[in-house]
């Protein structure tokens, strides 16, 4: 496998991402509105719960919103795949002197990397707000978030190639987004998920968003959040990354042959 060719695929996806100026603006507005309006007001509403856990809900929520942003921008690669299929760009990509595996792996890495580039500035602002508990923890958390972003991109590619209609993909992603975000600890601590409905907490325990957001909070010192050892968090995200990146690669590779994506 040629690293140079792999990089060319990644570079193309990064360049394509830079064209989505309005997506950047939209997600930026969403982030500011979530933090400066929703976060501030809900923080007031759940004061008593925050006191029980000895946390600032505002800080807890800001960390969660960062992970939701990383998740949604990583999912965006699926829309690109549909655009390309609709406009016949797929055929062009297949004629390039790049192996199928390089193409697919490059897209998965490119998808994760570009979401990191987008979230990078937000991450810096969030770190300024929350602080860092230990630089080593932060490094571990950032590495975990990379695994998370690549895994989500792989998942998005897998779903996109499994579905033949852009509309169905859009709907499926919307529903998945609603469930995966709400059944995780991005917006509320595990204790309250458990109190509300034990099955919700059981699902949240296996949700990659739970691992990603709790690892990030662990690194930033947002107290009362992590329910598992950081090793389990990294392992969970690694399994998620490995499953979707490599399963996604194999799946995508097979679907490419014979025009079965059409």
């Amino acid at each position: 496998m040629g690293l140079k060719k792999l990089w060319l695929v990644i570079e193309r996806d990064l360049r394509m991402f830079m064209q989505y100026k309005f997506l950047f603006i939209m997600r930026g507005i969403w982030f500011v509105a979530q933090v400066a309006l929703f976060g501030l007001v809900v923080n007031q509403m759940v004061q008593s719960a925050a006191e029980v856990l000895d946390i600032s809900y505002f800080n807890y929520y800001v960390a969660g919103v960062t992970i939701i942003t990383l998740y949604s921008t990583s999912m965006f690669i699926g829309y690109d795949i549909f655009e390309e299929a609709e406009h016949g760009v797929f055929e062009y990509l297949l004629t390039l002197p790049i192996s199928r595996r390089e193409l697919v792996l490059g897209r998965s890495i490119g998808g994760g990397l570009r979401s990191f580039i987008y979230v990078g500035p937000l991450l810096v602002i969030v770190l300024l707000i929350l602080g860092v508990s230990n630089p080593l923890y932060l490094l571990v958390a950032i590495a975990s978030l990379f695994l998370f972003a690549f895994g989500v991109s792989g998942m998005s590619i897998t779903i996109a190639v499994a579905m033949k209609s852009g509309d169905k993909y859009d709907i499926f992603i919307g529903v998945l987004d609603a469930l995966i975000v709400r059944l995780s600890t991005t917006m509320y601590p595990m204790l309250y998920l458990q109190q509300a409905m034990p099955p919700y907490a059981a699902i949240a325990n296996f949700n990659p968003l739970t691992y990603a957001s709790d690892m990030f909070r662990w690194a930033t010192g947002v107290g009362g959040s992590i329910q598992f050892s950081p090793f389990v968090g990294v392992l969970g995200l690694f399994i998620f990354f490995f499953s979707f990146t490599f399963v996604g690669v194999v799946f995508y590779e097979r679907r490419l042959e014979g025009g079965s994506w059409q």
Partner: protein
Amino acid sequence: MKVKAILHVIEYDFKNFFRYRWFIIGLLAMNLADLFISAIVFTQMTSIVNYFQFFAPGLAVVGLFASAFMIGREINMEVRREIHHYLLSLPMTRAELAIGRVLAGGLRGMLYMTPLLITNFILLRFPTPPELLLILLTLLLLAIGISGISISIAVSTTSFEKFVTARSVVYYMLFFCSSVFYPISVIQILETKGLGFLVIFAEVNPLTNGSDMIRSFLLPASDGYVFSPLMLLNVAIFSAMFASLAIFAYMKILQRH
């Protein structure tokens, strides 16, 4: 002005709406996830209100907004693909076409919102017939106003991305500065952060008035929500303003294209 022509336009938009049935089912699933997951968890976290009961009426307004706004997405697509030339060639006046589109947007919002409103009635309580009429009238006016905003934005730009961005700005401003997600008494905290203008905006926001009006009929009196005719007046003014703007913009801007 012929009512039959307006009805034809409404029928055309309803047929388009049902073409997106999977989209509607997906949207409904997302709304129900908000109620049956997020609202239940927040109920455990807050002692200010029973959040599940509080949020249920807000959810009907969220659904109403999302579906009434969909008409703008379609009209923006028509402008981009120049389908509006065909619509303008139909044997009806520009005013009939424009009124039909605004009304269709609102009625589609009402149709989508109905299962969410019924869920409210089942979970909270069934209103008396006069209360039900007032709720439906207010929500219809609200839906027409939202459809008006959506159409005004849709015909103002040929770029889908700009339309989506504008929709997001409107959505976040109207929802986060309203009592849809949290009580107005909690929003008042923004005053202490130097954001007093947002509190004023939240108080006059038609989404606040729409959701608080449903709460006044469906929640126990002890929760402190009391119906005031001013709520209806607020929504009616909003509706008249944006429906007129949309009709005017649709007629004038499409002709210019």
